[in-house]
């Protein structure tokens, strides 16, 4: 008798057949999910001749990294033929400060909202939270104007501002929900010992918040790295993030279509978040389920 909720592994041919069917279905789904990645990878390793003569799913006859090199620093995006590399660095330059600033402010907000509660703290939280449901289209036009006035239109700094502001509802939500589960006595005891607002934050709360810190950083990293709409709307030419550059690369209509370069470019743009997922998938899932309102 099993003491678990799941069904006991049965015996006999019927149970075996059921098991086999189960694995067949799961395996088919695994193929569906893996196919695009495998096709992308295998196409990116082929030469253009091989793509034309061979088929979609065939493995590359000889592996060539040429398309990767081309996508990285030779492919033409608009009139500029220096590949995705500069845009990749743009994204990195954008994502690091945006993630750090929005996470730090979110941590402060969450702490202030739960551990030094004041009248109306819940109303303030609700006010901030609304931002996480807002369709981005509502702010495109005013934001474009405002960035113009601030004279940071089209720049990476402008885009950092955008990502910090619209990341705040999420980072605040994460930290608020985490801190609310920590005992208030921690703060009380520390106050009696003479510790102040910031001392308690840096010495007690922040070290305790490491798990949610990791979740928030991963969440913000993937959101900002994968963003397209803000990048396309607010970053011009040299300051564009890699997603925008990739889209331009793929949709360039001049010359012969180089599918292997397109796929290599897509892989390059996907690598950072894939890497994060491979290394910290557990935290990624936690972030998804904790802040699953962002689109």
């Amino acid at each position, binding site marked *: 008798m099993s003491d678990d909720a799941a069904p006991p592994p049965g015996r006999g041919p019927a149970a075996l057949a059921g098991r086999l069917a189960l694995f067949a279905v799961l395996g088919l789904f695994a193929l569906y999910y893996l196919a695009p990645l495998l096709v992308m990878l295998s196409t990116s390793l082929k030469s253009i001749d091989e793509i034309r003569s061979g088929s979609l799913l065939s493995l590359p006859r000889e592996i060539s990294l040429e398309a990767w090199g081309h996508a990285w620093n030779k492919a033409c995006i608009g009139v500029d033929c220096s590949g995705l590399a500069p845009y990749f660095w743009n994204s990195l330059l954008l994502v690091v400060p945006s993630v750090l600033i929005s996470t730090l402010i979110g941590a402060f907000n969450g702490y202030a909202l739960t551990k030094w509660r004041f009248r109306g703290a819940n109303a*303030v939280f609700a006010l901030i939270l609304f931002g996480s449901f807002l369709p981005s289209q509502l702010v495109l036009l005013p934001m474009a104007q405002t960035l113009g006035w601030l004279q940071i239109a089209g720049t990476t700094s402008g885009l950092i501002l955008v990502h910090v502001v619209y990341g705040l509802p999420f980072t605040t939500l994460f930290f608020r929900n985490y801190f609310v589960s920590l005992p208030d006595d921690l703060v009380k005891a520390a106050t009696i010992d003479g510790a102040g607002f910031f001392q308690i934050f840096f010495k007690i709360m922040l070290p305790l918040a490491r798990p949610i810190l990791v979740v928030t950083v991963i969440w913000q990293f993937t959101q900002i790295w994968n963003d397209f709409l803000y990048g396309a709307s607010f970053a011009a030419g040299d300051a564009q993030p890699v997603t925008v550059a990739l889209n331009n690369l793929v949709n360039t209509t001049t010359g012969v279509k180089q599918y292997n370069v397109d796929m290599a470019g897509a892989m390059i743009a996907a690598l950072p978040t894939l890497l994060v997922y491979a290394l910290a998938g557990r935290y990624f899932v936690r972030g998804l389920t904790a802040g699953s309102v962002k689109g």
Partner: protein
Amino acid sequence: MTGPTADPAPDVRRTRWRMLLQRHMSKIVLAPSCAAILLFVYGFVLWTTWISVTPSRLLPVYEFAGFDAYVRLWQMGRWHIAMTNLILFGGLFVLVSLAVGVLLAALIDQRIRAEGLLRTIYLYPMALSFIVTGTAWKWILNPTIGIQQFVRDLGFEDFTLDWIVRHDLAVYTLVIAAVWQSSGFVMALFLAAMRGVDGEIVKAARLDGASTARIYWGIILPAVRPVFFSAVVILAHLAVKSYDLVVALTGGGPGFATDLPATFMYEMTFRRNQINVGAASAIMMLATVMAIIVPYLYSELRGGKRV
């Protein structure tokens, strides 16, 4: 304090001031965020609302002109296509993602080997940008080089999968790619909830001779009902905001057969110099999202749960 203090007054004053500061520190820390949200979220929503009732075309003008932009918006065939597509795409996307996600969660719940590996495979698309996955799917669904050609090469000369270039079917390719991207996430949500279902009831049902399918249908799925609600809200919200997927996969085409409100808004605002119509369409999007979110938040808050 036992320090030799000749004049206690400044010390006391400083302490009092520090306590006052301490007491209000949380408000001081929150103030910049609140100001930013008030301006960049609420202020901007009002700004967009105002633009939608002005005669703004190429540049914003700030004089009231009535609801002309809304009238024009709803007279545009292209907007009707975008809204119809949203209903079609959104509805199918939510339903299929739910079905696939629940099915996978239930299957993975059967104490199978390689669970970790399978979960990783099912969920990784969520880590990728729609621009990346749209690029990949565009290539796979391309009739002359993708699946269609592949199956024809296998000897099935008449096989056709040219949805992506068909006016009437291109919108379904959006569903394929979006389901691929998001169903793993639905699975994760349901798997977590299913693991939390009381094992005693399930055990009792099993002793009574209930089949696995019956247990899921009769006990486990009803027990995880709140997750259905959350998942629908999240997925519907994703559907309304879908922009990058369309841009990367179909570019809104062929023609504007795969336009969604999000792409329509961008087109009107930044390409067609009709920013009042663009703003009006953004307000319609907000109304759609609100119609989904408000009942959800209401029930969440009323249930006494933390948001």
